[in-house]
């Protein structure tokens, strides 16, 4: 026997699973934990039952703590058992089969029960609640038989049930007692929008309707209302609310009111017994949502493990989101109104948008969002912070983006007002305080701040903020950088100057550039070397010898490195079109090399993950043998040309978008560029290939082809600019090649087309491309470059007669590997 304290958890639902996890997170060795659950299966996310019912998720998707998880963590499980009694004197829990489990601490996580209305006929077959997996099973089976479903209760749960059943093909009707759906969350206007949105999804709402009796012989046949109407039903779901499950706490003599009464440390009236979750009544409140469960479990785990013996739970702010696909509904905090509450409301019935925020004493206390709920988390954060919103009140209702953009009209003041703990750089977790401290410590320009804090050193999207902080902190001492920024710390020259020198002085190697431009380091750094390598191969395609040592790992190994050091491999699928032969070859590679995951990419190809570096050449050889080449998914180069099926199949297609996409890809694959480059061709203005967020996108129309440039998704979304419209495929291809070459020659390394066009202006691009001679020259230079670079790097490295040694380790000194074998290889 060891001296571990014994913790017994009754209830293996969301609260039960969570408390075990929270305790183990803090202390995995001091406790001997047992968990008892009446459902015979592992812990799952009950909130996600609605998507399971709707067929949008499977049960496996929603398991949070599997049997294997409990096993691996040394937790004893008693699933399929229920508790007969709690013996507080002997400190043990007796199960229904008579076995007793002793405890030092007992945690009740018994959850809640659905309320069943005492209607006549409520014991008929086909009458169910919507609470656990068993209910979902019953409902799914009923739905498979078709017919009509009636759901009593137009709250969150009832509507999700009705939607799920409609989605499974039943005629679905919601019966609600009052005249507005979800009246606790919505006002009448929003309720009507919701009613309409649900009707479009096959759910009929019957409001102000009081149920009288469930009719049927042995099986439910319908629901009779007080007004005499009978609504036919082969399935009847009661979703009218929940009630804390207080057995066996009550029989054990604990203090129980509506729920099991607990103090701020989740302790019941017996100091050895605690309770968490929906079974709890804390400061008079019972909760039916998850956020409070998480809060309670954190508090209790802190207390029990001694991590923070004084931890306390003070109640939770609540937010809910309706899980009905395509219906965006979010509510948080108080929205019931009351004294001193003011409403700010935005309505756009045409778009089906309704937003309401509730303000009290200049603080945000609640919100309801319908149709556009993306700002929910932002509002909820404001509610929880409880700070004055007086300054942003006039734009509050328009959401975070507008409010912050408008607040940014005097950006320095806004930034100056931020508290020190505001995170400036999300990539590196740098706060405003840390940046200001660095500036005060002598970092008086952007590079120095980057050097000592890393703020804005990763994605760069917070560069502007860091510059504002420099201005605010240094005042007049701050001098905005004059002239172009240096390429990196190895030189004072900017990209443009270095590039010009390469071309004008005909410099053809990296060491010569560094010599000529007075580099301060012997061989540059990981930032300038790849840039110089690119500038040189772009300027001198036939003469420059590519330097693999100045390329990032992916371009050196022709695959994408993953966090665990393995690689992913993407073969090219021209225009996103593949064949049985290719798929078979890919499947064979997956089997042969134990590929753990195959993922369909956003660029219409397949990505094979988890490949060992040493296997890469063999993988390429197999793919090559089936006629596939590198997809350059790893490269600053042409990635994919996404297409729709166009006029070949689609009834809306105006041109052969697939065929054109394949031609574009054949024209441009293999060309190295300043950054990655994506294309797309859509067969009609419906734009299924999403051409307007690509570097070069084509939208086919009846009369020809619209050419778009400079779009990207990425950190800063940018839609394309329309370049021009052309009549023939050949013109479209000529423009694409000339555009690519202009970008290759003019953009700085790691500058995508979107920021490049913003920097040089669309007019510059148009002037160059619309001049026939310039366009022809660009295309000619592009073709010359392609003559050199359109080579499959995989075929170059794939093993032919001898193994590709550089992809294998230099030596293997692990036990069991014979040194003799190594010498033979050497």
């Amino acid at each position: 026997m060891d001296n571990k304290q014994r913790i017994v958890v009754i209830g293996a639902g969301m609260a039960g699973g969570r408390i075990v996890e929270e305790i183990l997170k803090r202390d995995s060795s001091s406790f001997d934990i047992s968990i008892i659950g009446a459902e015979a299966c592992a812990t799952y996310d009950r909130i996600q039952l609605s998507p399971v019912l709707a067929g949008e998720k499977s049960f496996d998707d929603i398991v949070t703590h599997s049997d294997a998880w409990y096993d691996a963590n040394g937790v004893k499980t008693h699933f399929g058992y229920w508790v007969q009694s709690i013996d507080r004197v002997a400190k043990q829990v007796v199960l229904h089969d008579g076995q007793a489990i002793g405890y030092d601490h007992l945690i009740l996580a018994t959850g809640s029960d659905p309320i069943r209305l005492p209607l006549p006929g409520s014991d008929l077959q086909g009458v169910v609640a919507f609470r656990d997996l068993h209910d979902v099973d019953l409902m799914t089976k009923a739905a498979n038989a078709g017919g009509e479903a009636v759901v009593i209760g137009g709250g969150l749960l009832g509507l999700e049930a009705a939607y799920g059943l409609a989605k499974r093909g039943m005629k679905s009707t919601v019966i609600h007692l009052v005249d507005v759906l979800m009246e606790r969350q919505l006002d009448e206007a929003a309720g009507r929008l919701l009613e309409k949105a649900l009707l479009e999804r096959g759910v009929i709402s019957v409001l102000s309707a009081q149920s009288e009796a469930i009719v049927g012989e042995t099986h439910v046949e319908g629901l009779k209302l007080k007004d005499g109407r009978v609504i036919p039903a082969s399935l009847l779901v009661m979703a009218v609310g929940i009630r804390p499950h207080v057995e066996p706490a009550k029989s054990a003599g604990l203090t129980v009111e509506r729920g099991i009464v607990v103090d701020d440390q989740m302790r019941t009236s017996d100091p050895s017994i605690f309770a968490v979750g929906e079974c709890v009544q804390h400061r008079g409140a019972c909760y039916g949502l998850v956020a409070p469960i998480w809060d309670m479990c954190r508090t209790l785990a802190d207390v029990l493990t001694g991590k923070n013996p004084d931890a306390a739970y003070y109640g939770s702010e609540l937010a809910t989101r309706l899980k009905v696909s395509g219906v965006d509904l979010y509510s948080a905090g108080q929205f019931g109104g009351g004294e001193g509450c003011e409403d700010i409301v935005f309505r756009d019935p045409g778009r089906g948008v309704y937003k309401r925020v509730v303000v009290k004493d200049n603080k945000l206390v609640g919100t309801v969002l319908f149709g556009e709920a993306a700002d929910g988390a932002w509002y909820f954060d404001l509610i929880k912070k409880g700070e004055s919103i007086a300054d942003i009140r006039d734009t509050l209702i328009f959401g975070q983006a507008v409010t912050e953009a408008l607040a940014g009209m005097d950006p320095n003041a806004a930034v100056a007002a931020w508290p020190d703990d505001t995170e400036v750089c999300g990539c590196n977790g740098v706060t405003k305080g840390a940046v200001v401290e660095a500036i005060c410590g002598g970092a008086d320009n952007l590079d120095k701040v980057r050097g000592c804090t890393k703020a804005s050193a990763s994605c760069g999207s917070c560069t502007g903020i860091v510059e504002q902080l420099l201005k605010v902190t240094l005042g007049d001492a701050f001098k905005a950088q004059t002239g172009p920024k240096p390429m990196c710390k190895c030189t004072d020259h900017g990209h443009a100057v270095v590039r010009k020198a390469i071309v004008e002085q005909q410099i053809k190697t990296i060491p010569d550039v560094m010599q000529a431009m007075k580099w301060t380091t012997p061989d540059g750094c990981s930032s300038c070397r790849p840039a110089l390598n690119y500038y040189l191969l772009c300027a001198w395609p036939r003469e420059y010898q590519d330097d693999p040592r100045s390329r990032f790992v992916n371009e050196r190994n022709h695959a994408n490195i993953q966090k665990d050091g393995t690689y992913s491999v993407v073969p090219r699928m021209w225009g996103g079109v593949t064949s049985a032969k290719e798929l078979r070859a890919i499947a064979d590679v997956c089997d042969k090399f134990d590929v753990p995951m195959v993922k369909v990419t956003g660029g219409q190809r397949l990505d094979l993950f988890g490949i060992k570096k040493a296997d890469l050449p063999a993988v390429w050889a197999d793919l090559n043998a089936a006629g596939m080449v590198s997809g350059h998914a790893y490269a600053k180069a042409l990635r994919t040309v996404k297409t729709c099926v166009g006029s070949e199949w689609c009834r809306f297609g105006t041109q052969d978008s697939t065929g054109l996409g394949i031609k574009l890809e054949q024209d441009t694959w293999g060309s190295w560029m300043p950054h990655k480059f994506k294309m797309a061709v859509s067969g009609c203005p419906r734009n299924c290939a999403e051409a307007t967020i690509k570097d070069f996108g084509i939208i086919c129309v009846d009369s020809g082809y619209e050419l778009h440039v400079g779009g990207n998704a990425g950190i800063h979304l940018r839609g394309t600019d329309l370049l021009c419209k052309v009549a023939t495929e050949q013109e479209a291809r000529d423009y694409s090649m000339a555009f690519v070459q202009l970008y290759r020659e003019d953009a700085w390394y790691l500058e995508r087309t979107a920021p490049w066009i913003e920097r040089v202006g669309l007019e510059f691009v148009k002037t160059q491309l619309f001049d026939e001679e310039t366009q022809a020259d660009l295309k000619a230079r592009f073709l010359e470059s392609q003559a050199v670079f359109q080579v499959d790097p995989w075929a170059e490295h794939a093993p032919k007669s001898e193994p590709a040694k550089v992809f294998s380790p230099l030596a293997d000194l692990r036990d069991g590997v014979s040194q003799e074998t190594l010498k033979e290889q050497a």
Partner: protein
Amino acid sequence: MNANVTLNWIDVGAAIDIPYQGARRVDTDLGAIAVFRTVDNEYYAVMDKCPHKGGPLSEGIVHGRHIACPLHNWSFSLQTGEAVGADAGKGCTPTVPLKIENERIFLGMR
């Protein structure tokens, strides 16, 4: 630790098998070792695991006597194994004794 432990020098390959500004990996029971050759023809060896997120340093870009990790671009001194630049002080990858004799690379193992 006994400071007088004699090193067991193990031949892991030919010096020319590592390109200038390049690296190769050597697998051992204690984890992989990255062996580097700088632009000035100096050889170094460190454990092939970035202290940040475990990235394979042998796949990074060698510059001067430094290596930039391929995953998040942390830079390390090949002489001391310490992180340098923006990430100085945040971590260190252990160095491994190395000598070149008769154009062969030897790693000093305990």
